């Protein structure tokens, strides 16, 4: 069975504050959408692999988010949990077209 990626418009750029996360639910899927300081928009699963912390509420620094629950450091770029902890979260593709932000899932 082949999985076809779907594309959904979730927001406009101006609705996304810099260096803060936004919770986006697409049906039952929950995504944390981040607009980084360098202008890029990224999306990862909104659930910390440690104990399920909501990553959209974490402190962002560069390409990392710190989980608000117990401070795990997670890469927003590739979803990898940083040392000394381990694990990873799913990442999603993001496309920006004329101010509109799309998530591929």
């Amino acid at each position, binding site marked *: 069975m082949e999985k076809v990626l779907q594309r959904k418009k979730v927001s406009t750029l101006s609705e996304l504050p810099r260096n803060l996360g936004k*919770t*986006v639910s*697409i049906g039952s899927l929950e995504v944390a959408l981040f607009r980084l300081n360098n202008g890029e928009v990224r999306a990862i699963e909104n659930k910390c692999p440690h104990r399920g912390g909501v990553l959209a509420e974490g402190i962002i620094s560069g390409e990392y988010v710190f989980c608000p629950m117990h401070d795990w450091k997670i890469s927003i770029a590739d979803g990898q949990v940083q040392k000394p902890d381990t694990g990873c979260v799913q990442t999603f593709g993001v496309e920006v077209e004329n101010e509109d932000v799309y998530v591929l899932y």
Partner: protein
Amino acid sequence: MTKQKIVLVGNGMAGIRSLEEIIKLEKNKFELTVFGSEPHPNYDRIQLSKVLQGDTTVEDITLHDWNWYEKNQITLYTGETVIKVDTENQIIYSNKNRAVEYDKLILATGSLPFILPLPGADKKGVTAFRNIEDCQKMIEYSAHYKRAAVIGGGLLGLEAARGLLNLGMKVDVIHIFDYLMERQLDKTAGKLLQKELESQGMNFLMNKQTEAIVGENRVEGIRFKDGELLEADLVVMAVGIKPNVQLACESGIPVKRGITVNDYMETGIQNVFAVGECAEHREVVYGLVSPLYEQGKALAKKICEIPGEGYKGSTLSTKLKVSGVDVFSAGEINENTNTKTIKEFNDYQGTYKKILIEEGQISGAVLFGNTSESSKLLRMINQRSDIDDYLVSKKTEDGGVSLVAGFPDEEIICGCNGVTKADIVEAIQSQGLNTFEEVKGCTSASRSCGGCKPLVTDLLGLTTGTDSSLSSQKEPICECTTLSRDEVVAEIRDKNLSHTREVMNVLDWKTSEGCSKCKPALNYYLGMINPAEYEDERESRYVNERLHANIQKDGTFSVVPRMYGGVTNAKDLRTIADVADKYNVKLIKLTGGQRMDLFGIQKEDLPSVWADLDMPSGYAYGKTLRTVKTCVGENFCRFGTQDSISLGQMLEKKFERVGTPHKVKMGVSACPRNCAESGIKDVGFVGVDGAWEIYVGGNGGTHLKSADLLCKVKTTEEIMEITGAFLQYYRETANYLERTSVWVQRMGLDHIKAVIDDETNKQQLNERLNDALSVLKDPWKEAINSEEIQSSLYKSVKVPVETK
């Protein structure tokens, strides 16, 4: 080629470490299966003491999480015990009727706590101290009962006792000998230790033999051989451990005290190995992890068929994990006719050192009070160094040369986690590490017992070329910088820095955008220095302070409105009840700070909840004044000598909202009965006839501490001034996240008194505080009135999906 099957019985520290070593050597040669009786993945048993003492949590001591097993394709059966080994056909059987064949079997079944066979030992409330469940049991007991008795004054018993004290219990330690830790210490050190622990609040019953544990169903006390009785609700048995050899015995694998093994960890049966506390090597059974890890290395080499000289035995060393107590011992402990000793005893400072020398070589050492030489001595004992080398090393060290310089690369620095000198140096160099915390984070050195901290610090200094004695005094604010709090604050003032990114740029931060430690800290310092102009950065705030509500584990929030001085009225209560109905509040809880907490509110609903409440934020989430708890006071209470409610409300109204390094709690009691618990608050007031006593630096949390008397004053004006000066001085000089209890201790009460007593200082401090107070607004109101805040912080996006 089919893979060889390795089965490991015992999902504990030694077994898993051995697998790790095997995987390091041969990634794909084996099919690995692990059985563990405990329901958890492998965790750091050592840190159970720290869990009990409140320094870490059960969640955070996992060493290998479920992912690790998956990633290494290890089949893991937790909560499942192996009950039989058929060594003939090479099959094991579990208690869940599973049969698994093996080519190689590793037994790492650890130890069982030794439970004295006393009448009553099976009563409710008797526990050992070995695993997570024991730990949880003690924590739970401490919530309901007061008196704990620990049987056994050894390492484990004392660590348990310290933990129970931290949990608020009254603790008696019962010991059969006349001094503590007799297996690791000599009498002098044992007595010094007892004195220190007594001053921490432990009570000791020495030379006592327990005869029975008494009580109806649950424990009510202990009876001793001499007929004396001791009341107790919880009894912790910490009298020793015995190797867990039942499975081996029943399966015909040769056992003496432990499962006997040779230098290659081979048992008497072909293809069966044993490692860890269950194994007996050259007539020694070890009970500390560092030797077990060496065994694991030897075992892995053997299984991967790499030639090596095997395991040759280890010298044991001891460190007690009780804060405020430094003891160390290694090798021989007591003098005999063949030994000479070097002894230094400093009664005044409470330090003691004894080095044992046999035929000119160092054979053992005991240190108390100052353990800075522990790593050096351990190494010298291991190598049976000449005592002259020690005496010379002392001279060169006084000249500033550290001993780690001379260590070979493969020398283990952290025995608990098996980290070598080469590992640490490599990490420092390749990742540009600069602080002890960074090294700990990257290499795990010092993560468990912390005994190797001095060596790691030295090594860091050597490798980076900085003077470690200096850098260890100066604590950088986080891993992004080498600058300390004081340096950063001075630079911000000097250079007039005005936002966090500017601080990071100008002060050469190693990361371009900081981390979760420095961002909030810098945000605080900037605001403290320049309250009128600094614009608070939302993205540098922890979630609770950014959203002005407390996040819960399911991602919903709780809301606590102000109730000044813990006073409310019928109208407010009605409003709260209506809000609770309207927003489907899951729980209304009275807090310890005399107000109400509404749980289970969705983030999107927060602004409208606040609008409906129409009350100021209670800042239950903030690093600021939380609450002022008050007793009823003179208007109603027959003992009250002062109007505590009015004073409490006045304080809360005056000082609310202002940012402090950490949360601040106050209490006002109208008489020394102290119903508002003023003695454990950051600032506490106690009414006495015609005057108020002001107490500071108390803490009722994990690190319970009673407050110190700052002064006694007559009028409310004086109270407001002194409190203002105290708060502002705390704001200006404390490290971010440093509670007043720690800060007062660090600065010294007398110093703080002197600062505040000075009339000019007092006035200026108050002026600066008033400047900061004058610009603050209620954050809930701000959110209600701002579209921008609502849409950027509280709105989430919901996109429907078509169902096909």
